[in-house]
């Protein structure tokens, strides 16, 4: 069975400070892991993905995530938040060769000026 847990329903940071959005997963097989972002009234945009290559993955807009198998985590980070980063972020797990892609509940990121 596979599942994904986003540990915070919302995170608030000040502009220019670091961002940490936490995600833990459970998967019976070697999964692929993704972070998607959804801006208000918009679709889902892929930020980055892990597919069993390098454990530190760099994505768009300065985001990166580190796959830690021992901790079953895939936390999303960014050194310095920008106002335009305010959005909903989804951690997603997809088993290798499987059909279903499972979404976490989402973390809403607020960025204060």
């Amino acid at each position, binding site marked *: 069975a596979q599942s994904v847990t986003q540990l915070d329903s919302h995170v608030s940071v000040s502009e220019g400070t670091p961002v940490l959005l936490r995600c833990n997963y459970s998967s019976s097989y070697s999964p*692929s892991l*993704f972070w*998607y972002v959804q801006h208000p009234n*918009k*679709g*889902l*945009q*892929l930020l980055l*993905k892990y*597919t069993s290559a390098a454990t530190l993955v760099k994505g768009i807009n300065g985001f990166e995530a580190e796959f830690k198998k021992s901790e079953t985590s895939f936390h999303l980070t960014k050194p310095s938040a920008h106002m335009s980063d305010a959005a909903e972020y*989804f951690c997603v797990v*997809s088993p*290798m060769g499987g*059909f*279903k*892609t*499972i*979404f*976490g*509940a*989402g973390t809403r990121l607020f960025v204060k000026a």
Partner: protein
Amino acid sequence: EPEVTQTPSHQVTQMGQEVILRCVPISNHLYFYWYRQILGQKVEFLVSFYNNEISEKSEIFDDQFSVERPDGSNFTLKIRSTKLEDSAMYFCASKAPANTEAFFGQGTRLTVV
């Protein structure tokens, strides 16, 4: 850049009516999906489709739902008799066989009144 296209962007329908949500996946992709997101809630898996048949479906995907790939390019979701609780954003996604990343459309917002 290739993208998944969904039409219409917004559909309003009366309770009990049938609706068809349309999606044009990326042309060389073979796996197709529908997800829904009720306002303020998480993204939920509905169904996956591969090789002209449903490969997996969730408990949400009951007899009132059906999917079809009528002409080799479109991928449709039909809701036979809509209920108020079907109001949601519906996302179509597709992925290529050698790549576990799913590409999402911009979504169709369905409002049942």
